[in-house]
């Protein structure tokens, strides 16, 4: 019986690195169709455990945003960040590569990859 153990290891915050990638891998529930990032082995919408991996859409719109001025020492402030609702319906947290005064709810964004300290992470930037 298929148990989806291959999706058991989720995004590990302490060891993440997206070097060499041009999109994020997520999952889609084969029972209800809901899509998720990061990887998970059981669907949060219907609790089904039949999921397939997908390539998460690299485009979306800002659901909401902020500019953070006070953060843990690892982050250089200020930085723009927030949730992007991707075109395939996943709400993803991300830091932004954007002029902070341009940020607004509904702004079209696209994914990009760049360094955070010594690692590569995903960001969103305004679609030009």
């Amino acid at each position, binding site marked *: 019986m298929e148990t989806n153990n291959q999706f058991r290891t*989720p*995004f590990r*915050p*302490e060891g*993440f690195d997206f070097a060499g990638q041009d999109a994020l891998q997520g999952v889609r529930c084969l029972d209800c169709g*809901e899509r*998720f990032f*990061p990887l998970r082995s059981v669907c*949060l*919408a219907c609790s089904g455990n039949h999921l397939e991996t997908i390539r998460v859409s690299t485009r979306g719109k800002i*659901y*909401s*945003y*902020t*500019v*953070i*001025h*006070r*953060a*843990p020492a690892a*982050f250089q402030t*200020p*930085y723009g*960040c*927030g*949730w992007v*609702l991707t075109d395939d*319906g*996943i*709400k993803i*947290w*991300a*830091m932004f590569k954007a002029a902070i005064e341009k940020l*607004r*709810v*509904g702004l079209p964004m696209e994914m990009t990859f760049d360094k*955070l300290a010594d690692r590569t*992470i995903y960001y969103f930037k305004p679609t030009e």
Partner: protein
Amino acid sequence: MQNVYVLGTGLAKFGKRDDVWLEELGREAGEAALIDSCLARTQIDMAFCGHAFGGRVVGQRLLAQLGLSGIPTINVENACTTGATAFHLAYQAVAHGDAELVLVIGLDQMASGLIDATKSDFEGALGRTLPGKYALRANRYIALHDLTVNDLADIVVKNRAFGAQNSIAHFQEAVTREEVLGSRMIAEPLTLFQCCPSVDGAAAALIGTEKLAKQIGKPLVKIFASALGAGKYIPSSEGKSPDDELVRATAQKAYAMAGCGPEDIQVAEVHDAFSIGEVLAYDNLGFCKPGEAARLIRDRVTWLGGKLPVSTSGGLLSRGHPLGATGMAQIVEITRQLRSESGSRQIDPLPKLGLAQCTGGAIPVVGTASCCVHILGR
């Protein structure tokens, strides 16, 4: 199910309390609740202790400070709803007839500044802070509805004015809108004064049966509703905020249990961990039509003298926010308002029904982890 009553309340001074051990802080609140109730401590037959940072068996440790041992004790953690969750469990113990008199204490000693994200939290690893999450909720409300940064600042002005009349609050000075907006930026649009301080504190209550309530000869304060909710995943395509929906669902459960509606509430303590938290609470608790929360602050409905004063204790913004203590401090404030014990910030005429709401925890993808809504009345 038995009726359950609040029989006594007690608070320790909130603020930087490195003058005492955590157990001693809890003892201050517990002794005050015992004195207030006029009941003998030997009558206590169960205890619930809420703390998020206290370590192991804080409840039993502080009971020993109160000269008590051998009392079944449950230690509770639920992030910012820790204290309220302990109260919920204590309510159930009495309602189900498992205990006649229960001591509930919520307390914590906290480092100042930002609370660290859980290690498994990928959003935290990518720069999300707790003020940042509330800032997102603020910017979305501002984008979709009629709300300004002046309205957010006025929440702080109102609550700090209440805090100035509360001797246990951490901040006891009133502030102006200009001072709020001019304080250091934390996460746009939230400035420092719009973020609750992380402080130490403890709050306690004794709750019990109707028989005990009638013995003590004080105004009866009955627990009409005790509702606990947990964050539920909502498909992003629905466009709804799971954080808002959790409070809406928990409030509906509480109103149904109490047999009342938001229009019947005359005093409330809400989760104003950040200025926007109180705005969202107005909306999600049904105190206004959806999207119209700013009206309550502009029309001074929620100020002293308005129809529904909110955060009369000064709220988390003045009192400070020791995670374990907050939910219990809200219960203490509502009880005292219903008993006409609130001094210069007492609501007149005496309210009949009061509500306490808090929310806690942030889980990636799911949203807010927990919510408690309590309705007390006389």
